């Protein structure tokens, strides 16, 4: 069966699979690294033990997440060459340097300070340790900066000239390449998404432990912090998403047409299709539930503004409408649900019932993994929506691939699927198991074996592992 599929489709499936799997980890670790910096900062400032306990608790989860993010990310940095060699050769002079900057300014920063962050508290002291945590958090953000610049350039390419050998070459200014038109919007929207994803994971874990014991002080702190994030950041994200959409309308109108399900042009105001079954063959949306003129109102701020439809785009340049239409609605629905949780928590807080309303806790628990679904749906929207191009309007996906035989790509795809589900499935299981235990007073950090992670001779033991701890727990109460 696999021999019948063409190599390019297989390569696309492989890239979609590996990049989707990978993105789960940074979507979580970008936010979690910042959360850890906040927790450690609060601990240093207030001296309150609960912040330190929570820091240690989430640090263990961060270590597992980060390891999976690293190994799945290396796959991507080589997959451009293995599977998309023509793209790499032609776009390399422009995007290669941006990716090199990502390695130089972000990956080394994260990796260099991670060891100290995980194992070095008693070796370097609190302040230097806090600095290391901040460097790791900064690294995750800088990494997002560069890689989103690359992605945005592929979506809205600017600042280049075409070389005689078919390569895209940098033009006058690198500024035009790095800060291409869709980059600021994509950066803001994606980084906020990562923060929201983390907030809902933390909130879900807090809710889980509140449901078991509503007096649990650690669960209360986590839940309260997460709900503040949800209440404040979810509305900001919806606004950022709206601005990103307007930017897309300007630069990639076909993507918006697919998201909206607008097969036909509407000269007198376009309706907002809430639901329906898009059908590319018949170029219509069956059973459409619409609000007249609302799409023009949202996108043009004028109910009667004309909006072009996919009938203005040649068929060979249209994205697959069915996928984009649905992935967009999934993302928006989750975003609205996040907003709902945020508002609900504000109400509960105002009534001083934040730790008592069981249904709020149940809803927050259900919404725990919602951020991952939302970012995945969002990326599907933007990536499928820019098809059939790798470099928008200039280089087709079909012309970007490596000269590989289908069986070679099929084999590697099968290998990736098996290994990723087995390895990252196990890792996710370990993370869930860590989350299922409540943070304890005197929580221990990333502890590798009975002998401690690493110890140098000639240096007397530093401060105890949990300086300032007031209570102790019996041995064996901790994680393995």
């Amino acid at each position: 069966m696999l021999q019948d599929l063409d190599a390019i489709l297989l390569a696309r499936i492989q890239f979609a699979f590996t990049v989707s799997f990978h993105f789960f980890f940074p979507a979580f670790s970008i936010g979690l690294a910042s959360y850890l910096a906040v927790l450690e900062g609060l601990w240093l400032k207030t001296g309150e033990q609960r912040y330190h306990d929570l820091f240690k608790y989430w640090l263990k989860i961060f270590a597992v997440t980060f390891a999976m993010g690293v190994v799945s990310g290396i796959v991507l940095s080589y997959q451009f060459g293995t599977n998309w060699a023509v793209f790499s050769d032609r776009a390399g002079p422009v995007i290669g340097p941006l990716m090199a900057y990502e390695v130089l300014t972000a990956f080394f920063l994260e990796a260099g300070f991670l060891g100290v962050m995980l194992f070095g508290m008693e070796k370097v002291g609190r302040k230097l340790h806090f600095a290391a945590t901040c460097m790791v958090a900064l690294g995750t953000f800088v990494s997002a900066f560069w890689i989103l610049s690359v992605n945005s350039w592929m979506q809205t390419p600017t600042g280049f000239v075409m070389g005689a050998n078919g390569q895209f070459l940098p033009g006058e200014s690198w500024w035009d390449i790095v800060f291409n038109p869709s980059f600021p919007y994509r950066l803001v929207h994606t980084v906020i998404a990562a923060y929201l994803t983390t907030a809902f994971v933390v909130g879900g874990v807090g809710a889980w432990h509140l449901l078991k014991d509503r007096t649990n002080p650690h669960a209360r702190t986590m839940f309260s912090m997460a709900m503040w994030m949800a209440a404040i950041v979810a509305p900001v994200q919806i606004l950022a998403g709206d601005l990103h959409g307007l930017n897309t309308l300007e630069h990639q109108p076909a993507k918006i047409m697919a998201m909206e399900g607008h097969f036909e042009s509407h000269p007198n105001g376009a309706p907002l299709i809430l639901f329906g079954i898009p059908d590319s063959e018949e170029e219509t949306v069956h059973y459409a539930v619409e609000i007249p003129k609302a799409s023009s109102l949202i996108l043009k701020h004028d109910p009667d503004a004309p909006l072009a439809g996919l009938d203005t785009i040649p068929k060979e340049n249209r994205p697959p409408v069915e996928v984009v239409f649905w992935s967009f609605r999934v993302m928006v629905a989750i975003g609205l649900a996040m907003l709902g949780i945020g508002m609900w928590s504000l109400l509960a807080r105002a009534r001083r019932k934040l730790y008592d309303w069981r249904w709020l806790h149940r809803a927050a628990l259900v919404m725990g993994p919602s951020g991952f679904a939302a970012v995945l749906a969002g990326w599907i929207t933007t990536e499928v929506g820019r098809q059939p191009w790798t470099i928008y309007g200039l280089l087709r996906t079909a012309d970007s691939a490596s000269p590989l035989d289908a069986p070679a790509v099929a084999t590697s795809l099968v290998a990736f699927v098996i290994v990723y589900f087995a390895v990252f499935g196990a890792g996710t299981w370990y993370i869930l198991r860590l989350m299922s235990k409540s943070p304890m007073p005197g929580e221990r950090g990333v502890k590798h074996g009975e002998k401690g992670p690493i110890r140098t001779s000639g240096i007397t033991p530093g401060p105890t592992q949990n300086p300032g701890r007031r209570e102790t727990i019996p041995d064996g109460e901790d994680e393995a």
Partner: protein
Amino acid sequence: MIDLSLVWAFIIAFAVFAYVVMDGFDLGIGILFPSFGVGEERDSAMNSIAPVWDGNETWLVLGGGGLMAAFPLAYAIVLPATYPLIIAMLLGLVFRGVAFEFRWRDPGHRALWDLAFTAGSFVAALTQGMVLGALLQGIEVADRAYAGSWWDWLTPYTLLTGLGTVAGYALLGSTWLIWKLEGPAQDHARRMAFRAAIATLALLVAVSLYTVFLGGQYFDRWFSMPSVLFAANVPLLTAIIAFLLFRGLAKGGEAAPFWLSLALFFLGMAGLGVSMFPYIVPDQVTIWDAAAPESSQIFMLIGVGITMPLILAYTGWAYWVFRGKVGHEGYH
């Protein structure tokens, strides 16, 4: 005028060398892992690299990302040519990398993750060596793209280079552990280092002779005047370093065997330079053919100039923080 392509060839070579020696000892520990006793020995061996392995592996990303940025054509030719090897290496690194965390999180399956650690390290080392072999034995190129079949990389020569790399990494790993461990575990590491050193040198000689007789080009580069005057130093120095290494191992040296093993790798890299320069894909694509435009090279060079000293400084600091023996005291 400075030849930026030449500068970038040295930067990429430096990144590859940094990767090979730094992740080399990580992978070598993985390869030798089953020979260490379950419990304290294995835990200490892994803990000796736990804080630094991630940074070490980042040099591989710089090597790959830097190649794409500075020599996109070479990146676009070599990776499809060695496709199954690269995929196998990446999957090996997946298993190796997660094992660092997973073996502590799941004691019930520790044996399984220890196996993943070893198998992943072995596969990554073997495939890295085979990629080098596939590059040296020649890659078919037509019209800016790889033109061979997807099994061209599998030959006796590439198997030899692959095994040579496994042995070399085992040497780096065992000498690193001599430095970081104490007592019986250190004695064991020393015994393994002897064996690894013998295997490494035997395979190094075999690969070198095989390479020289692969095709006329390599023979000429090594034995024609005037390059022979420089080239001849490489085997000569290798022999001296090898002698010092065995003496260091026999006399109970602590850090010296590791540094001498590094020197061996450096000479291997120099030998590689003699064989390949100025080609990046032997006899097909020179560094100037593959080079990115000057604007890309300058833009990145600014980045390297600013960040590399910082990277080396904080990486050095991280090693310094975790310096000395991996001891046995627990937390109290």
